[in-house]
C-alpha cells in the first residue's frame, strides 16, 4: 500500500480514461494525491519543475503511463525519463489499450513495474488496480 502522503502521477490524454482511473482509485479507497499530465512533455515538465509547472516534490511514488499519447509517445517518455539521472529510479505502471507484443516488449525494455492492458470492463479494471495497489510496497 502507498503511504498516505505519497503522490501518484497519471499521464493520460483521454478524459474518460482519466475518469476511469480516478473512479477506480476512489472505489478502492485510495486517497493519495493524483497529479495528471495530458502529455509526456507535460509530465516531464512537471517532474522537473519546468515550463511554468510546479515541480512535483517529492517525486511521485507511482507513475501510471498511457502509451498512446500525443506529441510524445509513452515509449519516448520512458526513454527520456530513464536517461534523466534524477528521474530514472521512478516506479512506472503502463496502462494501455495495446496488447501488441512489440509495445509490451518496448515497455519492459525500460524496466517498468507492470503492464496492464486496459480491460473493457470497468469492474475488471478496478480489480486490477486494487491488486496492484494492494501489493505495492
Amino acid at each position, binding site marked *: 500500500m502507498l503511504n498516505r502522503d505519497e503522490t501518484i502521477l497519471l499521464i493520460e490524454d483521454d478524459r474518460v480514461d482519466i475518469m476511469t482511473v480516478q473512479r477506480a482509485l476512489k472505489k478502492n479507497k485510495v486517497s493519495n494525491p493524483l497529479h495528471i499530465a495530458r502529455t509526456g512533455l507535460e509530465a516531464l515538465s512537471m517532474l522537473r519543475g519546468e515550463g511554468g509547472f510546479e515541480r512535483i516534490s517529492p517525486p511521485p511514488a507511482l507513475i501510471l503511463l498511457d502509451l*498512446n499519447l500525443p506529441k510524445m509517445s509513452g515509449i519516448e517518455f520512458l526513454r527520456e525519463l530513464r536517461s534523466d539521472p534524477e528521474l530514472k529510479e521512478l516506479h512506472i505502471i503502463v496502462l494501455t*489499450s495495446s496488447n501488441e507484443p512489440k509495445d509490451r516488449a518496448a515497455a519492459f525494455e525500460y524496466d517498468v513495474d507492470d503492464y496492464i492492458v486496459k480491460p473493457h470492463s*470497468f469492474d475488471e479494471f478496478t480489480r486490477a488496480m486494487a491488486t496492484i495497489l494492494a501489493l505495492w510496497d
Partner: protein
Amino acid sequence: MKRRVTERVLARLASWASLEKVQVAKSIWWGYFPVALVAMIGVLLTLAAFIQSLGWERGQVEIAFREAAQDRILVVQRELKHSLGIVQDIASFFEASEVVDRREFRKFVGPPLKRQAGINALEWVPVVLAENRSAFIREAQQSFPPFRITEDDLSGKLIESRDRPVYYPVLYIQPYQNNKEALGFNVGANPIVSTLLGEAELTQRLQVSPGFPLMDETGEKTGVMVAVPVFFKNEKQEDDPALASPGIRGFAIGIFSIGDIVERALESLRSGGVDLHFYQGSSTGDGQLIYTHLSRMREGRAPDTEADISEITYSQRISVGAQQWEVVCNPAADKFQAETWGSWIILFGGIAFTVLLITYVVTLVGRARQVRLEVEERTSQLWEAVQALNREVVDRKSAEQELQNLNETLEHRVAYRTAEAERRAQYLEQFAYVTSHDLKAPLRAVSNLAQWIQEDLADKLDDASREQLALLRDRVRRMHDLIEGLLEYSRVGKTADSENQVDIRELVDEIIDSLSPPNGFTIKIKGEMPTMHVDRLQLGQVFSNLISNSLKHHGGDKGKIRVKGESYGDVYQFSVCDDGKGIAPEYHNKVFMMFQVLESSDFESSTGIGLALVKKIVEEHGGTIRLESAVGEGACFYFTWPKNRSSE
C-alpha cells in the same frame, strides 16, 4: 549493336571464304602442270631414245656393211695380185733363163691357166729391132713354121707387118686355141699397147693398161693388159735408165678379164648384198669404170638405179701394179637397210609408257583435285554449319538475353508485387493496430460511462432504463469482441516466432480448464495426443475455438465432447466432436465464413469469427479442416496438422 558487329564479322569471314575458293580454282588448274611436264619429258625422252637407237642401228648396219665391203675388197685385191702376179712370174722366168722355148713357156703357164680364172692370154713379146727381123722370123719358124709378123691394116684386116724400126711380135701365146691370130701380131702397132709397153720399160715394173673390150664366148667383157718388162742381164744396172731401150729384151704380157677375176675371188665368200664398182683411177673425174660386180643376192635383177643410190657407200683405193684403183661399194637394194623396228618399238613403247604415265598422273591429279574439291565442299559445308551454329548461338544469346530481361522484369515485378503485398500487409497491420486502439478505446469509454450512469443513478432509474443501459453495455461488449476477433484473425501467420515443443494433451487440458465447461458437460481426450513442434498459441486457438463452439452451440444442458488425435502418415488428424443438435449440411460451408452466425444475435455472444479464424490458422500451417454433421446427430470438426513442418 552487339548483334550488328557479329554480322559484320560473319560477312568478312564469308568474303574470305569466297576468296579462298578462287585461289583453290586456280590451283586446281595448276594441278595439271605435272601432267604437262610428264608428257613433255616422256615425249622428249622417247624421241631422244628413238633417234639414238635409229642412229645406232644405222651405225651398226654401216659397220656391218663396211666390214662386208672391206672383206670383199681384200679378197678381190688378193686375187688380182695373185692373178696379175703370173705376168711377173713369167717375166722372172724369162729373166732367169737365157732361152725359153715354146714348149717350156707352155709348161710354165699351163698350171696357172688351169687354176685361175680370168686369164685370157699369157704372152711373151720380145723386142725385135728392124735389122733383126728376118733372123727372128727364121728362128721362130723353126718351132712354128707359119710364124710371121703381122699387123692390122686400116680396114682391120690382118696383114704382113710393114717395115718399122722396132717390132713387138707375140712370140708365145697361151692358150693358143683362142689366140691363133694373135701369134706374131705386132702389138706395138697398137698405140695403147705401145704406150703401156713404153711406160713399163720406162718404169721397169708391172703396168696395167686401161680397160678395153674383150670378146670371148660369153660375150663382151672388160679386159686389161698387164705388161712386165724383161731386160738383158747385167745391162739393166749399168745403163742409164733413159737409154734403157737397147737393153730391153721383151715383155711378159697378160690379158685379163677383170670381171672373171673378181667373180672368182668373191666365190669364196658368201653372198653379202654388196655391189662393187671398180674404177681405174678415181671414181670421180677421169676414172674409168672397168667392172661392176652386182651382188648375187639380186638374183639377176637389174639394179634399180634409184634404190641403189644408197645413203651408204664405202670406197677404198687399191694398188694394181703401178695403178691406183678405187673400189666403190654400195649395198644391194634391199640389203643393209637399217633394221629400225627396234627403234620404232622404243618410240611406240615410250609413247605408250608416257601415255600410261600421263593417265596415271592425270588420275592422281584428278583424285587430288577431287579430294581437294571434296575437302573444299566439306569445308564450305562446315563453314555453313559454323555459320548456322553462329547464327544459332547469336539467336540463343539473344533469346537468353530476352529471357534474362524477362526474368529481370519478372523479378522486378515479383519484387514489386512482394513489396506491394508487404506494404498491404503493413497497411493491414496498421489497420488492425488502429482498430485495436482507436476503436476499442471509445467503446471502452462508452461502456464505462454507461456503467457509471447506471451506478450513479441506481436509485433514480426505473427498470426499463436500467435494462436499456444493460443492453447498451452488452452491445458495446459484443462490438468489442468483434474487434478482438478481427484482430486475432489478422494476426494469424504473423506470429511465427513462438514455435516450441508442445505436449498437445497438456495444451488441450489447459484450454478445457480455461473454458470452465458448465456442469453436465464432459470433455474427454482420446487417441494419440503427441508432443510436437508447433505454434502453441495458434494451435491453442484452434482447439479453444472448436471446443468453445461445441459448448456454445450444443443446444442442451448435458453433453459429451470428445477430443481425439490420430496419426496418418506425415500428418496428425485432430477432431472435436459433440453430441449436440448438429448442423444441417447446407450450412457446412457457411460455418467457416466470417461473420456467419447461424443463430440469433440475441442468443449467446457469437462473433462469427471463430471458425473463420480456425480455418485460417489450419490452412496457414498447411492443414485442412472439414465438418461432419447432420441435424440432431452432433457435429465433428476434423483438422490436420503436419508432423514435421519447418517453421516459417
